[in-house]
């Protein structure tokens, strides 16, 4: 049942397209060589040469530019950092995707935060009553200050990171890339994706930027330093 209402229009639109292009038959499928010839891609892959630490710094700076709260720690300090953020927020409940590494929430559980693991029965209305959500991410893009979620087991379905008002997102060091052209080859297009660059915002009222309309109004990003960087960022 792909198409019931528009089947004659399908033929008509394709006919119109071909007529507009000056042909009556289907145009040949372009080969990758055709595309390469037609499209000059002499734009930059990245816009600067940076060390991994510089890239991490740039990401932190750009995330903060768009009002995300950035926290930096090392692997050993991660659980404590998450627990601290939940406490400071006053969260009583937190939801996590089924594939979140078990030890991330150890400290939070000890603090009496009610941690719920996502399951298909959890409705949007129920999610609306949860204080916080904690997830990982697929990757992060330094040049644009962007976190990409792709619904992997440590991130969960899209509704999970949408309905609660407080999102804590953990970025591991190997997940940071410089730029868009570096990011896309690492993603699977057909996975549902949410790209996040700061909390939701609007400038619709007299161009005054207001953070937080419908998505989580508070975005806290926890950047985990690589072992090499641990000395720079003690937990």
């Amino acid at each position, binding site marked *: 049942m792909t198409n019931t209402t528009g089947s004659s229009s399908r033929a008509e*639109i394709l006919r119109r397209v071909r*007529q*507009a292009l000056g042909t009556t038959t289907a145009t040949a499928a372009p080969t990758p060589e055709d595309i390469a010839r037609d499209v000059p891609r002499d734009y930059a892959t990245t816009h600067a040469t940076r060390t991994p630490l510089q890239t991490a710094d740039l990401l932190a700076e750009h995330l903060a530019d768009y009002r995300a709260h950035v926290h930096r720690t090392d692997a050993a300090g991660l659980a404590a950092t998450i627990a601290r953020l939940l406490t400071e927020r006053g969260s009583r409940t937190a939801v996590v995707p089924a594939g979140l590494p078990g030890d991330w929430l150890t400290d939070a559980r000890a603090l009496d935060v009610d941690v719920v693991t996502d399951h298909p029965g959890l409705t949007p209305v129920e999610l609306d009553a949860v204080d916080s959500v904690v997830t990982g991410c697929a990757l992060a893009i330094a040049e644009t200050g962007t976190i990409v979620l792709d619904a992997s087991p440590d991130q969960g379905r*899209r*509704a999970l990171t*949408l309905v609660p008002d407080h999102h804590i997102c953990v970025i591991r060091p190997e997940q940071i890339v410089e730029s868009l052209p570096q990011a896309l080859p690492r993603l699977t297009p*057909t996975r*549902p994706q949410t790209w996040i660059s700061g909390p939701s915002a609007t400038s*619709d009222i007299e161009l*005054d930027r207001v953070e937080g309309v419908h998505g989580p109004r508070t975005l806290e990003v926890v950047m985990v330093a690589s072992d090499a960087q641990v000395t720079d960022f003690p937990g």
Partner: protein
Amino acid sequence: MNPPSTSQESQTGHGTGVFVGLPSFPVAARESTRDGQLRANLRHATHTIRAKRAVAIGELSDWGELRAAGAAIKDHTLAHLDHYLQQLEQAVTAAGGHVHWAADADEANRIVTDLVHATGETEVVKVKSMATQEIGLNEALAAQGIRAYETDLAELIVQLGDDRPSHILVPAIHKNRAEIRDIFRTQMAAWGRPAPQGLSDEPAALAEAARLHLRQKFLHTKVGISGANFMVADTGTLVVLESEGNGRMCLTLPETLISVVGIEKIVPTFRDLEVFLQTLPRSSTAERMNPYTTMWTGTTDGDGPKTFHLVLLDNGRTDTLADTVGRQALRCIRCSACLNVCPVYERAGGHAYGSAYPGPIGAILTPQLRGTATELDASLPYASSLCGACYDVCPVAIDIPDILVHLRQRVVQGGPVTQAGQRVTIKPARGHTTEHAAIRASRYAMGRPAAWAAAQRLATGTRKLHPRSLPIRTAKAWTDTRTLPQVPDQTFRQWWKQHTKNTNPDPGSTTPGGAR
């Protein structure tokens, strides 16, 4: 949408587009110009956004290359559009989606209405979409007893205020905070959760009121309707860029999602997004990246809507494609940068353009999508002084002035065009009110303060800004008030550099609008 008539002389000059009965551009523009609030807000908005935009673009040393790649990707896609449409259809279907084809607005509205009826629902949530506005979907749904809730803050303001959008990016820019508070106070209750007691006119408080009002809708409404910024042919992936999160809500929480998308929104491969996801946010909201982008491919078990319908919309796009000069307009990624640099838009306001598409892009797109049979649509190509600032900022390098001149020729000379897929020859507008509307529009556009008028004559020597030929009568009417602009050898940028040498040696690649 195009009237069947092949003769402009037989037209009565009344609008037949989405907004029936709108006055022609110069009349509407004159009214807007008198509205001090609208003018002041628009001026503030356009100047703020374009200054920020220049900074965002200045961060990318390869802006020119990205712009060229974006234009080339779009041109390549258009040259193989039949192939990519079928490839997209196959990919979306394979991923569990349903694809529908709509030749015109009526058909698209009928398809969507039937799909909503089939769910048994009478309410839908919508994320801002120019395509659905173009076809008048909300009105069509309302006529069938279906209530469509706009969920963008600005669109909500516009809908609650029973108004029309005035800017692509900030559609409620013609309203100030006190007016918005009053609209919320008086109108929200009729649509759902009322505004909180004692609502102030602080933007944060107004945004909070919108959040509370709309959350109930998001959590309980079973059908969502959207457009899309991009459709990836080889994977079937749709992409929506937004700021507020209402898009994520509409695309994620409903059980059924219906997306109405113009056939020109295709890109061949996922990789092509690396160009547009760099150029669109910076060019549009002047951000490195917009807060939220959602990508989905058909349906995914346990994540998002269970049913997905894609309605592919022609509605004049193939007619536009048939015009070898005008087809460039189909590259447009709706960033609104051309609005923000346009001195005519700034003065006239978005409503004067009489369609979903205001500003320079509206002046070239509407007369192609709808034809030039009505007085309003025929006057649109004249709603410009041909200063070229729109071309300079356009992230897909659409030569808007060239298309404007081309469309002016079509209006005054007639000639072969394609209407609803049929090749026809339209007659010149000679002796008709259309011609006078056009002349009034051009006079309006050209009637500039002296300093600006000096700049706008110097647009460029490479583009064919100079009307190649004008019928005697029209040319005379033009010259009644002003001599035809002489196009110099010098480009606009060269002129800018010369005239700003002492204060600002380099305007950056995209700030010609500073030449006011």
